[in-house]
C-alpha cells in the first residue's frame, strides 16, 4: 500500500462529487407533478446532502476496484487464495457430495416445516430456477442472447389456460376431474413452446449477437401484444382465472395441501432439469454448443452443423420455459399478459448472468437471490430493478463469469499433472 495516492483519490472523488451532484439534481432533488396543465415543482433538499457524500465514497471505491482489477501482482496472490479455496471446498468431491445431499434434503422437507406463504414463495423461486436453466441452455451453452424467454413461459401458461377455458366444460360434463387437465397440459405446453421455438428460429438462425437479441425481444413483445389484444380468444388484459390445480387422487384438498403438492411436482421437475442440463453439458451436443459459443466459423470448419445445433438449443430452452409456464399457471391459478413482459425476460437474464452464465449452481443461486430477496426484504422490493440493473453493469465489469463461475473441464495427462506439481514445488 506504499504507492497509495491519496491526492489523486481525493481529487477524482471531489470532481465526481460535483459532477454527480449536478447530474442528479433535476432527477433526485426536483420532483414534478402536473395538475390541470400547470407544472408544480417541489424540492427535496435532503438529497443535496446524500448525493455528494455517496458520490464521493462510491467514486473512491470505483477507482480502487478498477485499479485493483488492472493491477497485476496483487491479483495473483488473491488468485492463489481463491484457487486454494476452490480446491478445498468446491472441487473436493466429499464436500460437493455432502452439500448437494444436504441441499436436496433441506429442499425436500421445506414445505413440511414452513408455512403456506413460504411454500408458495419457494415454488415461484423453483419455477424461476427452471426458467433460468432453460435460458442457460440458450445463453450459457449456446452463447445466444435471448431476450424473449418470457414469451415461451407465456406459451406454456396460456396452453394450460386456454385448454382449460375451452375444454374445461367438456371435462366437467364427462364427469372427469378438471385436475387431470394439468397432466395433459404439461406435455402439451412443452410441445407448444417447442413449436413456437421453431417458428422463432426461422428468422433467428441466420442472426448473431445483438441482432438476435433484438429479434427475440421483438418476438416477446409481439406475443404479449397478441395475448393482450386478442381479447375474445385469450381473455385480453384480464387474462384467464380459476385455472384448476393438479389432480391429487380425487381428494378435495385445502389450499395449503395443494401448495405442498405443487411444490413437490415443481421440485421434481427442477431435479429433472438439473440432471438433464448437466448431462447435456457434457454430451456431444453440449460440447458442440460450447464450441459454437466460442467461435462459429471455427466450429463450422470442424464439421459441426450450426443450424441443427442452434435449433436444438433454442427448442430445448423453449420447452423448459413452456413446462415452467404450465407449472406457473397451476400454481397461481390466474394468468394475464402482465406476467410475461419484456422485463420478465430480462429478470430471467439477470438470474443467469448474475448467478453465473453456463453454471448450473450459479443459475440456482441467481434464481434464489432474485426471487427471494425482494420477497423477504419488502423495503428492498421497490428498488429491486434499480439494483439488479446496476448489478448487471457491475457484474459485467468486475466479474463477467457471475457469482459462481462455470468451471471449465480440463483434461490433463497424468504426466502433466506431475510436472505441474513439480513446477509449483520449485516456486
Amino acid at each position, binding site marked *: 500500500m506504499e504507492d497509495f495516492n491519496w491526492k489523486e483519490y481525493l481529487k477524482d472523488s471531489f470532481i465526481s462529487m460535483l459532477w454527480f451532484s449536478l447530474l442528479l439534481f433535476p432527477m433526485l432533488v426536483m420532483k414534478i407533478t402536473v395538475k390541470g396543465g400547470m407544472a408544480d415543482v417541489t424540492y427535496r433538499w435532503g438529497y443535496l446532502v446524500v448525493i455528494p457524500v455517496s458520490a464521493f465514497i462510491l467514486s473512491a471505491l470505483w477507482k480502487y476496484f478498477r485499479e485493483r482489477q488492472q493491477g497485476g501482482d496483487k491479483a495473483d496472490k488473491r488468485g492463489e487464495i481463491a484457487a486454494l479455496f476452490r480446491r478445498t471446498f468446491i472441487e473436493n468431491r466429499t464436500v460437493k457430495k455432502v452439500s448437494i445431499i444436504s441441499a436436496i434434503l433441506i429442499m425436500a422437507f421445506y414445505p413440511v416445516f414452513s408455512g403456506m406463504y413460504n411454500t408458495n414463495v419457494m415454488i415461484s423461486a423453483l419455477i424461476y430456477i427452471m426458467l433460468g436453466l432453460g435460458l442457460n441452455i440458450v445463453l450459457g451453452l449456446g452463447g445466444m442472447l435471448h431476450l424473449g424467454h418470457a414469451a415461451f413461459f407465456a406459451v406454456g401458461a396460456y396452453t394450460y389456460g386456454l385448454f382449460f377455458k375451452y375444454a374445461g366444460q367438456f371435462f366437467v360434463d364427462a364427469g372427469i376431474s378438471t385436475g387431470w387437465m394439468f397432466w395433459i397440459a404439461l406435455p402439451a405446453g412443452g410441445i407448444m413452446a417447442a413449436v413456437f421455438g421453431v417458428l422463432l428460429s426461422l428468422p433467428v438462425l441466420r442472426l448473431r449477437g*445483438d441482432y438476435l437479441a433484438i429479434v427475440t425481444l421483438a418476438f416477446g413483445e*409481439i406475443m404479449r*401484444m397478441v395475448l393482450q389484444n386478442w381479447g375474445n380468444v385469450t381473455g385480453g388484459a384480464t387474462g384467464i382465472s380459476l385455472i384448476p390445480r393438479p389432480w391429487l387422487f380425487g381428494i378435495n384438498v385445502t389450499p395449503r395441501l395443494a401448495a405442498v403438492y405443487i411444490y413437490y411436482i415443481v421440485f421434481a421437475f427442477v431435479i429433472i432439469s438439473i440432471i438433464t442440463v448437466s448431462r447435456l453439458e457434457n454430451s456431444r451436443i453440449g460440447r458442440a454448443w460450447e464450441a459454437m459459443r466460442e467461435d462459429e466459423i471455427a466450429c463450422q470448419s470442424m464439421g459441426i452443423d450450426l443450424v441443427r445445433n442452434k435449433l436444438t438449443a433454442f427448442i430445448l430452452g423453449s420447452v423448459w420455459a413452456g413446462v415452467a409456464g404450465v407449472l406457473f399457471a397451476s400454481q397461481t391459478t390466474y394468468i394475464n399478459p402482465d406476467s410475461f413482459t419484456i422485463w420478465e425476460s430480462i429478470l430471467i437474464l439477470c438470474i443467469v448472468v448474475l448467478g453465473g452464465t453456463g453454471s448450473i449452481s450459479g443459475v440456482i443461486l441467481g434464481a434464489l437471490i432474485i426471487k427471494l430477496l425482494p420477497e423477504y426484504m419488502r423495503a428492498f422490493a421497490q428498488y429491486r430493478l434499480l439494483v439488479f440493473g446496476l448489478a448487471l*453493469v457491475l457484474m*459485467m465489469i468486475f466479474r463477467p463469469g457471475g457469482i459462481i463461475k462455470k468451471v471449465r473441464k480440463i483434461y490433463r495427462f497424468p504426466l502433466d499433472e506431475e510436472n505441474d506439481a513439480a513446477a509449483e514445488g520449485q516456486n
Partner: protein
Amino acid sequence: MDYFLKLLLSGTAKGSIYALIALGYTMVYGIIKLINFAHGEIYMIGAFVALLVGGTLQSAGVNPAVILVVSTLAAVFFAAAYGLTMEKIAYKPLRTAPRLSVLISAIGMSMFLQNLVLLSQTEKYLSFPSFLPEFLFLKPIRGYINSTQFIILIITSIVMVLLTLLIKFTLIGKAMRATSQDREMAQLVGININSVITVTFIIGSATAAIGGILICSYMGQINYYIGFIAGIKAFVAAVLGGIGSIPGAVLGSFVLGWTESLGTGYISSDYEDSFAFIILILILTVKPSGILGRKENQKV
C-alpha cells in the same frame, strides 16, 4: 385520399422524431458496434429535464419563448451529460470485453436509468405542456398539418443537415468515419479513440434529447417508460435503413413512421407498437444489412 394524406403527414412527423433518436443509435453502433439499449432512456431523461425546467420557469411566470429556449438547452445539456457518464461507467471498462458483455451492461444501464426516474419522479403519465408556438399561417391547412408537426419537420431537417455537415466536413467527423471503418487502424494514425467515442455519445444523446422534447410536445404526455419503446422503434428504424449509415437511419425512420401511421389508420390501432417489430423480423429475415447498409462479412 384525404384520410390517406393525413395519415401520411402524421407518419412523416412521427418518422422524423424516430430519425432523431435513430441517428444516435446508428452513430454509436457505427463506432463501437453496440446496440445502446439505454439510448431510449437518455431521450426520456432529456424530456423529463425539459419538463422540470420548463415547469419551474412556468410557475415563475416567464415568457414562453424563453421557457422553450432554456428548457431545450437544459435538456440537451443533461442528456449529453448522462450519455457521457453512462459511457464512462458502463461501456468504457468493457472496451475489450466480448460484445455480449457490453450488450448486457447496456441492458442493465437501461434498467437502472428507467427505475431511477420511476422511483425519483412518478410512475404515472404526466401531461407535458407544449411550449412550442402556434403558427398562424398554418391555419388554413390545419387539418393536414398542425404547428407542432411543422416544427418537428423543420427542426429534424436542421439537425440532420448539421449532423451531415459535421460528419462530412469537420475534423472530428473525419475521425468518426475513420474509427467506424477500422478502429485499430484509426488508432495507429493517431486518432484518440476514447475522445471520438465520447463525442459520439454526446452528439447522439443531444439529438435524442431534442427528439424527446418534440415527441412529448406532440403526444402531450410523458412517463418513465416512453424511452424504452421509442428506443426499440428507433433501433428498428436504424436497422431498417442499414445500421451504421446516417442517411439509412433517416430513411428507415420515415418508412417506419409511415408504416405505423398507415397501419394504425387502416388496420388496427391496438397493434400500433407491433408493426415496428414485424418490420424488424421481416427485414432481418430478408435483408439483414438493411436498405442502405453494406453487407458485412464475418471475419475469423
